[in-house]
C-alpha cells in the first residue's frame, strides 16, 4: 500500500480520529494510544453491542484500520514508554488542548530531539496560537465560528449544523494532508516538523465561494432553507428541495449545457405524463440563462415542475434522471443509501465483525487505487496489539 513504510502514533480524541483513519486507509501502520480502560470516547452514544460491550459507532468508524495499545501518557512511566515508541515513529497525531503535551514533556521539541525526522500533527478547534486557542469548542462551536451554520437553516430561522458532526471529519482530513505535505518536505531535508491544524478553518472549505460575495461586492450570503441563492444577478432564489411521494427530491433549474439538456429532458418526461404546460413546451432552452432571471420568471418556471415532482417516488426520480441523463438526485435516507444500485455495482459497502455472530455495515474504502478498493478492518479492542507493538520495540 501507498504508505506501508510508515508508523503513526495516534493520541487523538474525536476531533482528530479521521487523520489517523485516512493514513491507515492508505496503508500506514497506525497505533492508537489509549489510556488504561480504553478511550472514554468508545462509550459516546449512539453505540452498538459488540463482543466487548457497547461501543460508539463514531469510535468504531473513526478508528477502523488502526491498532491499539494502552499507555497512560499522563504518568511518568507511560511518558517514558511513549518517548521510546516516538523515537522510532514517523508521525505523532494529537488533539489535546494546546500546551498539554509540552506539560508532559511530550511536545514536538521534546520528541524531535530523539527523532529529528518525526512529524507531529496537532488538531485543535482553532490552532496552537491566537486569541481563541484556549476556547472550549465542540462541533457546535466550531461549526458556528466557521461560518457554515450561517448558511444552513430557514432564512428567518436559527442557523443549523448538520446533525452528524462534520468538523472532526474536515479537520482530520486536512490534518492528513498536512501530515503528508510534511512528509514530502522530509523527503528532501530529512527533518520532520510540527503541523498545526485549525478545525475552524477546515470547515471553512465547506462555505465554498460564499466569502467571494462579501470580498468582491460586500454582499453577505445567508441561509435559504430549501432554496439555492447566489445564482442570479437579480437576487431571485431558486428551489432545490421538493416534496415527492415518499420524501424529498433535489432538483434545480440550471443553465449551461448540462442544465439545458436536463430541462429539455424534464419537459419531455412531464409531457409523457401529460403534465407539461404550453409555457414549458414552448421554452427556448437553447438560449436559456439563469443569471438574468427575475423571481417572477423563476416562479412561473418552477410551479409546474413542482407539481410533476410531487407525483414521483424518490426511486422513480433516481431511475429517471440516470436513464435520461438529467441533473438531480433524491434526498437519500440511510435505508436508500444501503439499497443504491450504483454503490452495489461498485461493491462499496463492507461488513465489520461486532462479535462472533454479528456484523455491521460500514462504508468501504474511500477510493479505488490501481483497481483495488482500500481495505477496511474493524477498529481494535482496547490494547489488542499491545504485546506486538510495544514488545517489538
Amino acid at each position, binding site marked *: 500500500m501507498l504508505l506501508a513504510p510508515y508508523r503513526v502514533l495516534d493520541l487523538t480524541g474525536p476531533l482528530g480520529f479521521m487523520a489517523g483513519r485516512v493514513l491507515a486507509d492508505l496503508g500506514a501502520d497506525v497505533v492508537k494510544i489509549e489510556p488504561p480502560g480504553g478511550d472514554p470516547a468508545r462509550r459516546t452514544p449512539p453505540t452498538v453491542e459488540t463482543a466487548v460491550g457497547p461501543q460508539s459507532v463514531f469510535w468504531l468508524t473513526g478508528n477502523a484500520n488502526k491498532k491499539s495499545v494502552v499507555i497512560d501518557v499522563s504518568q511518568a512511566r507511560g511518558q517514558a514508554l511513549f518517548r521510546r515508541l516516538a523515537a522510532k515513529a514517523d508521525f505523532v497525531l494529537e488533539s489535546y488542548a494546546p500546551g498539554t503535551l509540552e506539560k508532559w514533556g511530550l511536545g514536538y521539541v521534546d520528541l524531535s530531539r530523539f527523532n529529528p525526522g518525526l512529524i507531529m500533527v496537532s488538531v485543535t478547534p482553532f490552532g496552537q496560537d491566537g486569541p481563541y486557542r484556549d476556547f472550549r469548542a465542540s462541533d457546535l462551536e466550531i461549526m458556528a465560528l466557521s*461560518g457554515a451554520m450561517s448558511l444552513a437553516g430557514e432564512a428567518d430561522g436559527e442557523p443549523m449544523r448538520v446533525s452528524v458532526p462534520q468538523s472532526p471529519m474536515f479537520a482530520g482530513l486536512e490534518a492528513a494532508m498536512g501530515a503528508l505535505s510534511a512528509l514530502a518536505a522530509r523527503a528532501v531535508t530529512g527533518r520532520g516538523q*510540527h503541523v498545526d491544524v485549525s478545525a475552524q478553518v477546515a470547515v471553512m472549505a465547506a462555505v465554498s465561494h460564499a466569502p467571494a460575495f462579501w470580498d468582491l461586492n460586500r454582499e453577505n450570503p445567508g441561509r435559504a432553507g430549501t432554496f439555492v441563492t447566489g445564482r442570479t444577478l437579480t437576487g431571485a432564489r431558486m428551489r*432545490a428541495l421538493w416534496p415527492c411521494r415518499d420524501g424529498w427530491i433535489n432538483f434545480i433549474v440550471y443553465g449551461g449545457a448540462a442544465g439545458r439538456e436536463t430541462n429539455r429532458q424534464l419537459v419531455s418526461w412531464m409531457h409523457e405524463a401529460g403534465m407539461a404546460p404550453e409555457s414549458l413546451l414552448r421554452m427556448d432552452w437553447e438560449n436559456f440563462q439563469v443569471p438574468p432571471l427575475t423571481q417572477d420568471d423563476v416562479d412561473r418556471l418552477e410551479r409546474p415542475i413542482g407539481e410533476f415532482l410531487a407525483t414521483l417516488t424518490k426511486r422513480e426520480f433516481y431511475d429517471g434522471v440516470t436513464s435520461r441523463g438529467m*441533473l438531480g438526485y433524491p434526498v437519500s435516507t440511510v435505508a436508500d443509501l444501503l439499497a443504491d444500485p450504483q454503490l452495489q455495482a461498485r461493491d462499496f459497502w463492507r461488513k465489520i465483525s461486532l462479535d462472533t455472530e454479528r456484523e455491521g455495515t460500514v462504508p468501504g474504502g474511500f477510493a479505488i487505487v490501481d483497481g483495488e478498493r482500500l481495505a477496511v478492518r474493524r477498529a481494535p479492542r482496547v490494547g489488542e496489539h499491545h504485546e506486538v507493538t510495544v514488545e517489538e520495540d
Partner: protein
Amino acid sequence: MADGMDALGGVTVVEFGGYAAGPAIGKYLANFGARVIHVESQTRPDGFRLQYPPYPSDRVGVNRSGCFAIFNDSKFGVTLNLKNPAGVALACRLVEKAQIVIENMRPGVIDRLGLGYDRLRRVNPSLVMLSTSNLGQTGRYATHPGFGSQLSSLCGFTHLTGTTDGPPQLLYGPYIDFVAVVFGGAAVLAALDRQRRTNQGAFIDLSQYETGLQFLGGTVLDHAVNGGVEQRCGNHDTLAIPHGCYRVRDERWCVISCWDDAEWGRFCDAVSRPDWQTDQRFGTASQRRRHESDLNDAIAAQVLGEDGTVLMLRLQRAGVHAAVVNSIADLFSDPQLAARNIWQEQVHPEIGRHHYRMVAYQLHDSPGRVRSPAPCLGQHNDHIFRDWLGVSTQELKQAEAAEAFS
C-alpha cells in the same frame, strides 16, 4: 530546515477539468509550493468563470469570477484545445514533466480525448493520476452527469440537516465536493510519496459520493445494526444539554453547549441566573432534557439583549462552551482567523485587490501561503510552454497555427 522552503517544491501538477472538485485539490498543493497548471480552453473555459457569480460590480467577464478565483489561486493557467491533436500533443508534454494529474471530467471523457491513464502512463510511467467524479469511474450510473449541490442530497447530508419535524435543508454550494477534495488530496500526496520511493505510478478512482459517505460512517453503522430511521435533529445533541443556537442583539446568533452539570452551573452564574441550578426543571441534565423546550426558551429570553461577542467571551472565560455564529462577512473580521493570516490579499489584473483563503493546516518550517492571484484564461501559455517546457518558437508557431491553444 531552512525557513521558507516549500514542502511541495519541485512537484508539478496538471489539472484537466473545472469547477471545484478537481481544481480545489490543486489549490491546496499550490499553497505549499507545487507548480500547478490549470488547463482550460478558449472555447470551453472552466465552468466557474462564466456561469457563477460573484463578479465585481455584477459585470460578468471570463477573468472576473470570484467563484473561479477562490479555487485557483497560486496556479498557472494555460489554454489547450483538447479536441485538437496538436493540443493533446502539448498536453502530453506537460504530463511528461509532471508528477501528478488531477482530472474531474465525466468518466470516459478524458479517455476519448486521448489523455486517459492508459495513454498517459506510457508518456510518464511513474505518473500519479486522480480521477474524481460524481459516482466513480465504474458502475451502471458512472457516466451520469451531476453537480455537488445535488450529490450532497443523494449522499444523505441534506436529509440530516434541519429540524426533526421540518423539511431537509440545503447545504451551501457543492458541499460534498469539499469532502472529496480533502480525501483526494490525501490520496495523491500518499501516492506521491510512493512514487518518490519506488518510481511506481498510481491511478486513483475517487467517487465523490463514496467520500461523502465516509463522513456519515457512524450513522450508517448505527442504522444497519440498531435499525430505526435516523433523523435530523436541528441543533440538538444526545450528550450536551443545553446545546443550541440563540438569537442575540443586532440579528446575530450565539451557540452555547453544556456537557455536564458543573458546566451548566458555570453557565448559570455567568448569565446571572444561579436560581436555574435549583430550578426543578433545570437542575440536573435529566431534568433539563425533560424540559428542553422550556430550557431553550429560558436561555433565549435571557441572552436576547446581549452582544454576541461579549457573551461568547464572558462564557468562555467562565469555562463554558460558547461561540458567535460568524456570518460570511464576520469571517473577514474574526480575530482568530486574522491571527492565522487566513485571508491573504492579492491584486488580480481584472478583479483588483481581493482575498484568498489559506488552508487549515500550517507547516511550521515550510509554511504555505497564497502565492499569486487566480490566473486569467491562458495567462501563462508563454511561461509554461516556452520557458518551462522549452518548446521552441517555431514549434509554438506551428501549434498556434494548428489552433492548439484555442
